[in-house]
């Protein structure tokens, strides 16, 4: 096995743990962790709430090789506190992104998060802001920061704002991206506004297919680790930076989206407006058929 081969047979990204995802993503045996669980850098705040800590605070960071090239990688563990951002969790990611800028090395963020960890909400919120600034500064230095979304917890709250700061996003159907979660909207605005138990509604409003169709994500892949690996390799081939031209292009893209779809009442209306024949079939389509149907989607063209 050479250094540039993948690690394992493909497995479900959705089902995999953070460590399994990293192992499957980078070249076999190439990952070296920074501040691993043996360092016992745990949250100093969860004990206040009588909650158990985890030795890595729910995020794995380090460096590996992807198709032979060094990359910095962070993976959130959605099974610990819903992958939420606390003080230590967030600081590990901030540090990795500042290193990306200093060392001019590309970074991959494998999101799996419900957003800010409420038990340390102020520290988590500030970590989100620090991470977003670190991403922008890294991108301006010519570094790619790729977001990968397809985990159990999705990419919610502050996590979705970080994703919106990345240079490119890779999603699977399971990759939900949204600021307010379904339960939060329902709790605050009522079940008439959003029925969080209507899973079909959740998936077509926030899921990976819809995000890909409106240009909210750049690459759509099957829920398989090897598909994510290939997409990550491809995503690192182009670098666009983040200057005024990119943000002007994003401004136009997001204004056009409001003009085209601002009156839509449901995702199906948007899919119909995109010219998709049989828009109600979209949720059931397998990847090949979906990508064919998505031919006239709104493409971000790196305007993000």
């Amino acid at each position: 096995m050479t250094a540039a081969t993948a690690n394992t047979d493909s497995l479900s990204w959705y089902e995999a743990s953070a460590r399994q995802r990293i192992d499957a993503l980078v070249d076999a045996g190439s990952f070296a962790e920074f501040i691993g669980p043996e360092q016992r850098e745990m949250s100093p705040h969860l004990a206040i709430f009588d909650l158990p800590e985890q030795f890595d605070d729910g995020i794995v960071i380090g460096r590996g090789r992807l198709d032979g090239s060094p990359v910095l990688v962070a993976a959130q563990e959605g099974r610990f506190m819903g992958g939420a951002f606390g003080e230590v969790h967030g600081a590990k990611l901030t540090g990795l992104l500042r290193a990306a800028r200093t060392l001019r090395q590309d970074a991959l963020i494998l999101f799996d998060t419900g957003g800010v960890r409420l038990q340390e909400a102020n520290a988590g919120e500030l970590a989100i802001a620090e991470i977003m600034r670190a991403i922008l500064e890294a991108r301006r230095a010519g570094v790619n920061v790729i977001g990968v979304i397809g985990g159990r917890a999705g990419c919610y709250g502050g996590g979705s704002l970080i994703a919106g700061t990345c240079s490119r996003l890779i999603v699977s159907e399971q990759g939900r991206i949204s600021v307010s979660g379904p339960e939060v909207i329902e709790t605050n605005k009522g079940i008439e506004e959003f029925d969080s138990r209507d899973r079909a509604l959740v998936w077509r409003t926030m899921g990976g297919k819809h995000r890909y169709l409106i240009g909210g994500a750049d690459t759509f892949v099957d829920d398989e680790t090897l598909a994510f690996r290939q997409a990550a390799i491809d995503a690192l081939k182009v670098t666009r930076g983040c200057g005024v031209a990119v943000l002007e292009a994003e401004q136009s893209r997001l204004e056009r989206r409001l003009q085209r779809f601002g009156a839509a009442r449901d995702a199906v209306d948007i899919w119909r407006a995109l010219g998709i024949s049989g828009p109600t079939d979209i949720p059931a389509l397998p990847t090949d058929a979906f990508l064919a149907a998505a031919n006239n989607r709104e493409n971000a063209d790196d305007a993000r």
Partner: protein
Amino acid sequence: MTLDDILAGLFPNGSDIGVAGAMISGSAIHPGAGLVHVLGISQGQPLGVDEAIVLARRVIEIVKSGDRAPILFLVDSASQRMSKRDELLGLSEYLAHLAKALLLAEAEGHRTVALLYGGSAAGAFIATALATGTLVALPGAHPAVMDLPSMARVTKLPIDVLKAKAEATPVFAPGLENMVQTGGIHVIWDDNAPLGPQLAAVLQRPQGQDDRAWLGTERGGRRKAAEITDRVVALAAAS
């Protein structure tokens, strides 16, 4: 303080600043600092796709003008707008776009200062106040990630228990002083003193790196963040 009081205090020679709906936009001449672009969100309104795209357009126009004048972003908002429509249209992209525009302005040589004079919460707070180079606040401002009753529901703890825990740590409960201690807010202004010189003092700070985690360490509100961040940078450089 009302928005009118704040603007009069900051710009005693007058200003050309309009309020359309919840959004503030215009410019003024500061006695010491010269031209200052002013924008913001007011009246405790939520920040949705429609507001974020207008504010971002204005920031990008300012950057393109090349004047490098400071941008003052006034904040009295609710949280992000919680609606099916906003999420259907990709609210996360709109909020991140506004944040990137503000971060871009700072990187392109504009001083960006946010003045929190009312409320703000969650995604709206991240996309506006926390995306500027320096965040200051007036007494009585009330930032929050989530209000305590909602937090009680999510954490399944009685609100009295949460209040008791909030006495022991600034790390989770809403409030101005907690956000100062954790390093998110640089300074609380004195509303009994003229505001103009206090803005001038902020604008005279050297433009530099993100120092919020270190402020949190110094003030005791976030004892781990800065040390962990710096350790990761050092480990990555050494390996």
